[in-house]
């Protein structure tokens, strides 16, 4: 991964010499203190809360403890939701990659003077409310809508419907996080020197071979970044499952939200969040390592 794409920092000429003075710390500390207090430390309180025990006789009140059973209990009750979340997020990420790549390729190599306008078009849908856009899929995928009718006519749907099934949740996730896939792919493709592709075709590589041996490997950093930026929010999302799925399609985010806000079972909700974060971090680091080494071969 090292030599493939220079990062933004390396691409620019050696910038102004870095000064070392107190001013640096003065500029740094307020922002970093905010992130420490309201992002880093909350992880510690989340972990401590996940070990708390209920106070007998007072519902919704908990005391500091070291109750590891919170984790096994939470897992026993909700393990299916973890699997469902990662399966849904995985399918949505794969679909998003399939849909995003041709568009990113087109913007990077063929759009010419329309390039920045097309980038605006990619981010523009995000200006309309996330919740409303998700809700709009209720209309598009409705039982009497033409998409469902056509697919039913072709006997493609096991439940004769899309809405209130896992299919609708996956469709919503794919749609909602698509810009997070398109932009990193575009950023990686745009850095490719067209002369490298020309060189390949000068050496009698077919367009397909040029893509397979030159363009695709050079775009891998974008593929890695895009899949991560799509997969992580999709795995934690519960809006799509709530608005488009049935109660049988709930994801882990639904369980965290319900336990925290409705049931006020803070230890269970915290244990579920800690496990989600740990699983995601493990997946992400394994993925980056693998993608990184495969690319060097």
């Amino acid at each position, binding site marked *: 991964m090292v030599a493939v794409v220079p*990062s933004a920092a390396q691409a620019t000429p050696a910038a102004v010499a870095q000064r070392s003075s107190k001013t640096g710390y003065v500029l740094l500390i307020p922002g970093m203190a905010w992130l420490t207090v309201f992002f880093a430390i909350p992880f510690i309180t989340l972990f401590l809360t996940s070990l708390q025990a209920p106070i007998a006789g007072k519902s919704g009140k908990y005391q500091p403890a070291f109750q590891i059973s919170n984790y096994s209990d939470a897992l026993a009750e909700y393990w299916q939701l973890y699997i469902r979340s990662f399966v849904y997020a995985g399918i949505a990420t794969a679909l998003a990659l399939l849909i995003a790549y041709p568009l990113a390729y*087109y913007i990077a190599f063929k759009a010419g003077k329309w390039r920045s306008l097309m980038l605006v078009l990619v981010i523009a849908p995000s200006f309309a409310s996330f919740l409303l856009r998700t809700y709009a899929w209720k209309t598009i995928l409705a039982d009497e809508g033409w998409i469902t009718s056509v697919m039913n006519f072709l006997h493609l749907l096991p439940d004769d419907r899309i809405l209130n099934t896992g299919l609708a949740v996956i469709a919503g996730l794919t749609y909602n996080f698509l810009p997070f896939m398109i932009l990193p792919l575009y950023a990686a493709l745009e850095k490719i020197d067209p002369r490298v592709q020309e060189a390949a075709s000068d050496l009698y590589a077919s367009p397909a071979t040029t893509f397979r041996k030159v363009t695709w490997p050079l775009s891998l950093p974008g593929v890695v970044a895009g899949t991560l930026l799509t997969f992580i929010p999709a795995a934690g999302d519960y809006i799509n499952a709530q608005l488009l799925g049935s109660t049988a399609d709930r994801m882990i985010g639904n369980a965290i939200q319900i336990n925290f806000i409705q049931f006020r079972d803070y230890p269970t909700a915290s244990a579920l969040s800690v496990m989600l974060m740990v699983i995601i971090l493990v997946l992400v680091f394994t993925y980056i390592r693998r993608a990184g080494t495969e690319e060097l071969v």
Partner: protein
Amino acid sequence: MRWLRRNLLRIIAFLVVAYLFIPIAVIMVLSFNKPSGKYNITWNEFSLDGWTNLCGVPGVCSSFVKSIEIGLFSTIVATVLGTMVAFALVRYRFRGRSTTNLLIFMPMATPEVVMGASLLALFLNLRFPLGELTVIIAHIMFIISFVVVTVKARLQGMDPRLEEAARDLYSSPRAVFRYVTFPLVLPGILGAALLGFSLSFDDFIISFFNAGTLVTFPIYIWGAAQRGIPVQVNALATIVFLVALAIVLIGQFVAYRRRRSLESTAIVAEESLATVDTLGRS
């Protein structure tokens, strides 16, 4: 057939863009609907109710104004803090650089539900009352990172010779900053602020965890989704969409005339590439 093969990529690209806009079209069309039941999902009858009586349903406009208020305040604070950090990262040497980078990157790679839950755990344990203040604190937290990466990219992309030239002409450090550095970085800061505001305005998950009884626009929509979203919400969302699109298009036009068009979102994407790159190497 030949024509199809030659234009296949273009056709796919346009289909994908169209796909991105299908829900937007649905939102807009349904803003002119007169729903037959309580749910505004299927087309029934043309009506201007949503547009002529924008605040006709209680709670819609107050939550809308609340979201703008929270968005403006959080964006201003986060932009100031994030810009300072970006300057420190690019222009100064300090200890703990890799920890700093990790702390900036992590909020962008953490699922919102985990950030919302952990912040709520903090406030609950401190017995800190939930409300507008806790939502603003949360929004500032997740906007800072986006501001840092956007402004940082802008600073790094600047030609250092411009500042050198000013210094060679005996400008004081203060004058160099005031007349050269700041004006050059300003478009990046404005882009970051726009991105920050749109993230704050549209945030549901983190806000919902930390809102208590406060109702922002997305929280209003979430509640209304169970009992039927009023057409006014579609009309307001259409207005927000068109205003934001106009601002970005004007920004692009100005940038195009000055021959530098860098979309702040594209910078964030690019920065994510660089970070994944570093993480992969470590």
